[in-house]
């Protein structure tokens, strides 16, 4: 008996097909005007008919997002290290970051355009501003949650504080840092789009805003689909990074084979060194 070829298509694809089906059914049954919700064929036709356009603007937004994300990671981890090691920086920089974080950052977007112009710089700055805080907070938490035994171990090994940072604190903080990065990468995308909304000639935010002005709802939807694809791809990129960088973490070990020790020792193996990370 031959297996139905449809059975090879993964569930995730069926989910997306299902969303489109419900969308199309709503349009047909409820007779929704195309200006409110265009039919699926029209949106997909626009997307694939003008694919070059979406690729170019999508690439532009993605580029700004990745640059903002990279800056956030480097600067964020650097600031966190400073905050953890310096009482002064904790009182000044950390306080400043908390204050800035409580301002609705979107409100600052017009300021960035005034300062940095309508080019890429203002979008990248927006992306950094929105995403950096998640990384600083999670990295500070991760660096601080070194198990007391490991602090003692570092001291008993008589290494410099730099060694303790590089060989104990940072690896121990990796799960936290990656958790912060996962949040930050989607926030960097938000920042890039917000920047493009305020003033731009490029990027998906620009396409959405100008299409809205021209009542081209199909283009708005096509752009949102591309954005969803970018966001999802970025998320899975981070999942992949996690799998590669912290295969040792409890959250990554659910499928780890319980390799049998030679002796059935029953002693408690528990050692919750880094279990507090995933904040």
């Amino acid at each position, binding site marked *: 008996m031959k297996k139905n070829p449809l059975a090879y298509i993964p569930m995730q694809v069926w989910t997306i097909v299902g969303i489109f089906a419900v969308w199309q059914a709503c349009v047909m049954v409820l007779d929704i005007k195309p200006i409110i919700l265009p039919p699926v064929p029209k949106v997909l036709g626009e997307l694939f008919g003008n694919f070059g356009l979406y690729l170019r603007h999508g690439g532009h937004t993605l580029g700004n997002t990745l640059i903002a994300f990279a800056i956030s990671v480097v600067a964020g981890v650097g600031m966190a290290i400073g905050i953890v090691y310096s009482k002064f920086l904790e009182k000044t920089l950390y306080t400043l970051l908390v204050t800035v974080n409580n301002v609705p950052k979107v409100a600052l977007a017009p300021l960035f355009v005034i300062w940095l112009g309508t080019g890429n710089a203002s979008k990248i700055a927006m992306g950094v501003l929105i995403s950096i805080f998640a990384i600083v907070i999670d990295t500070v938490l991760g660096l601080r949650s070194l198990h007391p035994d490991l602090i*003692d*171990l570092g001291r*008993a090994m*008589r290494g410099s504080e730099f060694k303790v940072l590089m*060989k104990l604190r940072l690896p121990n903080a990796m799960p936290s840092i990656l958790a912060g990065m996962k949040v930050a990468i989607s926030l960097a995308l938000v920042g890039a789009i917000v920047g493009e909304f305020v003033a731009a000639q490029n990027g998906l935010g620009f396409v959405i805003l100008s299409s809205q002005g021209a009542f081209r709802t199909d283009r708005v939807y096509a752009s949102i689909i591309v954005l969803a694809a970018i966001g999802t791809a970025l998320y899975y990129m981070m999942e992949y990074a996690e799998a590669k960088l912290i295969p040792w973490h409890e959250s990554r070990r659910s499928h780890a084979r319980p390799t049998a*020790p030679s*002796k059935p020792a*029953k002693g*408690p193996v528990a050692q919750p060194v880094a279990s507090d990370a995933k904040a």
Partner: protein
Amino acid sequence: MTETLTAPAPETHPRYAIEIDGVGKTYGSGDGAVTALDLVNLDVRKGEFISLLGPSGCGKTTLLRMIAGLEDPTQGSIWLPGRGLDGLGFVFQRDALVNWRTIIENVLLPLEFKGRRTKAAYQRARDLLATFGLAEFEDRNPWELSGGMRQRAAICRAMIDDPQLLLMDEPFGALDALTRDDLNFELQALWPDPEKTAVFVTHSINEAVYLSDRVVVISDKPGRIVDITEIPFERPRPLEIREEPEFGRIARHLRGVLDGHSARRA
């Protein structure tokens, strides 16, 4: 820590590995002050295996941590002739292996801290792991090993830099009885070694008698040395010596000392 390093040594006694002189430790001050240790004097001979035995909370771990330079005494001084704090290895109650390194990489960690990781060191780590029956597990992750194997790896890590002083804080307290026997046997097999001195904290009388050259009993509230018993058995010691009448006699003596000074008795 500095105090431990700079403690005056009018004349060094090369036959001692640790000289503890009038050491006390008080936490807090004023009415709320708690004296964990009071006026401890103890000289540990080179090559000696010594156990600190006492009830929970009697300050034996505090004394060990002060020897390791992890805490400072509030009175008196501790002097480590020889390499001082650079020549010690520490074994924790819970192994304190790091999950992001394989077993052999964990063992090599102290050498990386001291910037002395070499090819030869790698080979030494392999040999050391083989001695403790972990040859096949050197590239495994810590979480794949049982508690006993993890603690063996932790002992290898403490020994990788060939320490003059091995400090152990109830290292087998969390293990089941059979694994504990195995580890006791493997640990005693490292002695006699004139270059290696051990301080072993435990609240198991049998473990202390089996492993040690001398057992130091510490009372609680405040922590004081109340008894020092020499253990006469020859090395190497088979586990069966625990069945001998002499072993039982020493164990009963220590039991009596502990009971006589236990706070619960009062």
